[in-house]
């Protein structure tokens, strides 16, 4: 596979890794609901959403592996926790159902804006893949939106819990739009059709009517925005030990 005329491989690789790690981490986090979701139907739904995200991660890691001549599984599983580049929004642990819904809503809406900026991009392999992912993510937003609506309109415990979840996530909500080190090169080459600042503006414009309607506080700008994809804490180290457990049990085995 060739990079585009003007975007260096390192810039493309950085973008793919960030997006793939986001999808991988949220997919694995949500898979923790399998068997314990609030009702059977929701258990199936959340497990299926989690599988979708892991599928998206697999496709993105696959593209990255092709680009860099490496192995997708090795990228997904063989890094130390500090080498993952997902955004800090996904570093809060599974939490309760309201936390999962709040995280999903914030992430899925942001991911939708990001996919839009890649669909029209100049690197065909990524633009094509982003188009496919965007079609599946539409449903994810519907699902998260339906639940956010129900929790927020519930005057009792549901609303309290979703407010608490949003309060915890708020400082990290915008970290999906942490500028990548090579963003200027990606914009220059047209791989991304919008800067992270522009994407964040679109995201805020997109979600603010919902937040207003539900009487929820809009997330503030990200704290320490330059490190939005670094400094993964204890919750992620635990998650990492879970999702690498089998792989580490027999390094180099053929599965």
């Amino acid at each position, binding site marked *: 596979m060739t990079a585009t005329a003007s975007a260096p491989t390192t810039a493309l690789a950085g973008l793919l890794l960030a997006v793939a790690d986001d999808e991988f981490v949220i997919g694995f986090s949500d898979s923790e609901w399998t068997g314990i979701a609030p*009702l059977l*139907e*929701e258990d199936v*739904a959340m497990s*299926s959403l989690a599988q979708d995200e892991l599928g998206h991660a697999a496709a993105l890691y696959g593209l990255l592996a092709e680009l860099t001549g490496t192995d997708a599984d090795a990228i997904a599983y063989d890094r130390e926790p500090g080498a993952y580049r997902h955004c800090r929004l996904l570093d809060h642990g599974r939490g309760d159902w309201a936390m999962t819904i709040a995280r999903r809503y914030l992430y899925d809406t942001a991911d939708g804006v990001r996919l839009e900026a890649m669909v029209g991009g100049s690197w065909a392999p990524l633009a094509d893949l982003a188009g496919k992912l965007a079609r599946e993510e539409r449903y994810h937003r519907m699902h998260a939106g*339906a639940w956010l609506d129900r929790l927020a309109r519930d005057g009792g415990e549901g609303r309290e819990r979703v407010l608490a979840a949003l309060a915890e996530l708020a400082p990290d909500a915008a970290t999906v739009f942490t500028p990548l080190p090579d963003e200027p090169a990606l914009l220059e080459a047209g791989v991304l059709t919008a800067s992270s600042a522009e994407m964040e503006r679109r995201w805020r414009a997109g979600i603010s009517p919902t937040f207003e309607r539900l009487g929820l506080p809009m997330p503030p700008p990200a704290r320490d925005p330059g490190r939005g994809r670094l400094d993964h804490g204890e919750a992620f180290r635990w998650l990492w030990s879970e999702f690498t457990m089998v792989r580490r049990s027999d390094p180099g085995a053929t599965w």
Partner: protein
Amino acid sequence: MTAKHVPGTAAPELVAWEVFRREKDGDPMRHGGSVMAPDAELAVHYARELYGRRQESVRLWVVRRADIVDLDDPDLLQPPLDRLYKKPGGYVMRDKLAAARAQAGQAKPKARSK
């Protein structure tokens, strides 16, 4: 329509929804199964996950079970008298014809030639 959940009250009740699915264009809608959900929106989500997530359907109908008009009255559906005449095959005429021929002294006609 489904009752809306009143904020601050107990969790909305789950009710049953019947799901019909079309497997591919041109097929009839067939009953696929059911889901439990508190309202139409989530019922559609769950129907999609349970009867459509493997791309096995091109259309779903999700119907609240309570909205279905049910009929299982045996007097109306399984009446005791002979209703063969209402079936496309009608009565079995073979025995009656044989008796009529015997009475008239006629042999069974041969199959018509072309």
